[in-house]
């Protein structure tokens, strides 16, 4: 077992993490201060918006730099342990927030994504996982990188949809649901890539596309829950409140699939737990 001071480049994460949080926070504050109704008119608002995008992008670049340097330092993709997946999640959460901001100019979204990314960055600073360089044979596959990164990408978009759903429970003015729909569609597309690349990989590694392993089952639960949301929206069923509650339920399932499943007694025979 490695001690913290044996963790090489991981030790410098505190500096990268805090820089990313500060930059993202400045971007979030600037975007909140922008009055979108006047965005087309006021020069000051346009400048604030541009600065918000600049700071949010800088936070993204800082996280990306750390991931690349850690990858080089570990001599393998940093995608294996929970701590490493949290790293990607923080990165993609910032990306999803910036994407949503650029696409819909929803001025609170950068604050949401900053909170989301900060939580995961802080967990990684205060409770770093044991980082070693070993990669078990099943993980040595070309499927490894796309499978995990598309999942983290999807989780971050669905995380933003979850935050919008929380906002939607208490506010009724902004067009929260249509923004949530687009985020769910993007998230669902990547969730499907993640689940099916996992199935194809499982066939190659273990012989079956689907084996009802706890992780696989929760992945399917999450996928079906979002599919239910999409169909409720398509068919025009469900009140706004019920739909927001469903999105919150979907995100709880997603958290179960990501890390909650490790704490279920049933997961002890799972083939998907790599960091115990």
């Amino acid at each position: 077992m490695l001690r913290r001071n044996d963790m090489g480049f991981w030790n410098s994460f505190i500096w990268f993490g805090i820089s990313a949080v500060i930059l993202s926070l400045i971007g979030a504050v600037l975007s909140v201060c922008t009055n979108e109704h006047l965005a087309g008119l006021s020069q000051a608002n346009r400048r604030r918006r541009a600065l918000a995008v600049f700071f949010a992008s800088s936070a993204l670049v800082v996280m990306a730099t750390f991931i690349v340097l850690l990858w080089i330092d570990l001599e393998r993709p940093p995608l294996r342990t929970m701590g490493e997946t949290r790293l990607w999640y923080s990165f993609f959460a910032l990306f999803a927030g910036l994407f949503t901001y650029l696409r819909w100019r929803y001025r609170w979204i950068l604050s949401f994504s900053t909170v989301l990314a900060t939580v995961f960055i802080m967990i990684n600073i205060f409770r770093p996982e044991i980082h070693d360089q070993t990669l078990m044979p099943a993980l040595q596959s070309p499927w490894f990188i796309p499978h995990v990164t598309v999942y983290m990408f999807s989780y971050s978009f669905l995380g933003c949809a979850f935050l919008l759903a929380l906002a939607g429970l208490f506010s009724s003015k902004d067009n929260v649901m249509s923004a949530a729909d687009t985020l769910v569609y993007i998230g669902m597309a990547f969730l499907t890539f993640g689940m099916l690349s996992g199935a194809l990989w499982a066939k190659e590694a273990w012989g079956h596309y689907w084996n009802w392993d706890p992780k696989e089952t929760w992945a399917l639960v999450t996928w079906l829950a979002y599919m239910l949301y999409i169909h409720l929206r398509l068919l025009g069923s469900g009140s706004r409140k019920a739909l927001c509650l469903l999105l919150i339920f979907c995100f709880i399932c997603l958290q179960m699939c990501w890390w909650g499943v490790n704490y279920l007694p049933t997961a002890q025979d799972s083939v998907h737990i790599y960091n115990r």
Partner: protein
Amino acid sequence: MPYIILIICLAAFSAIQLMVGNLPVRFFAFPLNLILALIWAFGIVTLWRSKRKSAFVRFMLSKGATLCAVSLFLVFCLIIGITGVRTITQSWPFAFVLLYFQSVLLFVILRGWRTPSATGSGEIRWRFILNHCGILLAVSAAFWGAPDSETLRIRAIRDVPVNEAYRMDGSMTMLDYRIELKDFRMDVYENGTPLMYEASLLIDGVPADLRVNKPYSRSVGEDIYLTGYNADDSSACILQVVREPWKYAAVAGIVMMLTGALLLFVAGPRKRYVEEE
């Protein structure tokens, strides 16, 4: 009323489950599964073509039927996820839910594969077709193909051709070919965890190198995997023979779903959503 019938069906299949136990999956092995699948598909297409106004078809095409199908599948997966009891997938009520899910899907595909138009030749809805047919193919391959799937374990021994294999229930069977281990190599990290292991085999005289993530495809639907080893003894290793003749339908479904998901990402929600707001 249809919901009451649905609940009665679920209750009936639960009662069957309590009386006779799990579904006798092997009983439905080829060709029975294929015959039943064809009768099922033909039945639904016939109902769609000639009984479109019937209460049954109208229900299967209703909002409620779709939402029930997704919700019931979700509820069963939640039960499996929470309890960890994988054998639920071989139970009568779960089989009923999957059959109902596939039936609703097929009805919905028949109705919705092109946009409705007065002339009857509307626009083809590619994203809808890819997503729905993809799911139907993948689920059907798993459902109807389950009786033909078989997993066997075999202990390959250095320089000794063997053909005794063991099913998952522990019973023995004979392969119609012999496997002989010629060499087994293993690399480990400094801390002793395995980095890579590889077996060189002769499978009916044909040389094959197997690693984790690198199975050997012996014939249509039959693959051989290297699954285990004994760290102290390189004179034997454990192989797994997987027979899954329906896997090609599953792959076709998966590829369709992947393409459909790409279109989901590119095109986003239907415009109607935004207009509703």
